[in-house]
């Protein structure tokens, strides 16, 4: 195998095809291609729904040098279709995975990036189980604020994220662990004292969204009615 990854497949683990996970994967794809690598984006939900042939992954995985996983956090860990996917590729394509590089990017709406630790650790354990080279995981808190926006539409925040992801891409294409500086750069720092006004802002947004669709009763024990 070549010492520099040249073919990278990026799996998006969100069922939303235009969300923040896709936006991040899209940026990585552009950055990989800028460095001369070929990179494709695939949606895990397409394999789950049977829209993409799972058996076709055998050839794909045999051919690539590195895999990237991009997913939101669902209830403190990986979304269920991602669990399904990782288990199934382990059962069916372990020999194709062996020796390949793996990195992961997870995001959530909460500002506390440590919440993403179980998700990223599961990705590392997947790499371990398949004798892959784990290049590291990145966590982004505040993904709901991005809400699928493309980096070029996010002004300074987008520029910082792109510059940070560029460093990660440099490391990945050299088959090196993603340097810790990348995580420091993308970590949203909101002091805990600001959580109350943040909660108030998010709650206001929720009420506005409900009002827009004519919903007035948001609280209540509806399952017991």
């Amino acid at each position, binding site marked *: 195998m070549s010492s520099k990854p040249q073919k990278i497949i990026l799996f998006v683990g969100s*069922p*939303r095809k235009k969300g923040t996970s896709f936006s991040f994967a899209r940026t990585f794809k552009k950055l990989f291609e800028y460095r001369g690598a070929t990179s494709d984006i695939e949606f895990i939900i397409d394999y789950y729904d049977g829209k993409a042939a799972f058996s076709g992954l055998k050839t794909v995985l045999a051919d690539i040098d590195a895999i990237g996983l991009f997913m939101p956090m669902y209830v403190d860990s990986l979304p269920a279709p991602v*669990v*399904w996917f990782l288990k199934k590729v382990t059962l069916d394509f372990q020999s194709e995975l062996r020796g390949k590089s793996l990195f992961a990017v997870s995001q959530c709406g909460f500002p506390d990036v440590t919440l993403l630790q179980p998700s990223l650790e599961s990705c590392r354990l997947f790499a371990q189980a398949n004798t892959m080279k784990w290049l590291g995981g990145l966590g982004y808190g505040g993904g709901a604020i991005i809400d699928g926006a493309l980096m070029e539409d996010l002004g300074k925040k987008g520029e910082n994220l792109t510059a940070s992801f560029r460093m990660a891409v440099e490391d990945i294409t050299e088959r090196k662990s993603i340097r810790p500086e990348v995580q420091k750069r993308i970590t949203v720092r909101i002091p805990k004292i600001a959580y109350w006004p943040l909660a108030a802002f998010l709650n206001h947004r929720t009420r506005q969204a409900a009002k827009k669709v004519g919903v007035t009763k948001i609280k209540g024990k509806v399952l017991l009615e």
Partner: protein
Amino acid sequence: MKAAILDATENENPIKTVLDKKLSAKGIEISYFKLNNLNLLPCRSCGSCGNRTPGKCVQKDDMSLVIKSMAESYLLVYISTIIFGGYAFQLKKVIDRSMPLGEPFYFVRDGHLLHPMRYGRKLLLGIGLFKDSNPEEEDNFRVLVARNGMNMQASHQTIVIHLADNGMLIENEISKALGSEI
């Protein structure tokens, strides 16, 4: 008092028998779900349960039975083989779809942003099963159950069981975990 047992294991295991015995002895009404036998769709992140149909998922499948039981129950038991340090797929589908148990609002407690829960205080018991021991996977599983508990504002306990463990050992572990909470 009610309990909802969500069993994501594929085969029969002694845990159900032990839980039946322990919980029935305390007069607890049990709803048991063998998740592999149910039609469960994954969450599509449509957001409906937040502000269009607050507290209810719009997907039509067996999850409506499961989540009603979770809402009614004080004790929630998750039984799962540990997969990459997390829950098996069948259980994770249920957990992802349990968002309607919380409100789409936020509040702050102990420095964490949390969703208020609609259905009162719960006790969460996570039971992870291993065929081949892996301390790192076990650690991550424990962290995950603790995080779920924190987010649900639920008391929580975690047990990790080797598939070769005998029934008496399993019974002791479950008794210890349930302790004085039940």
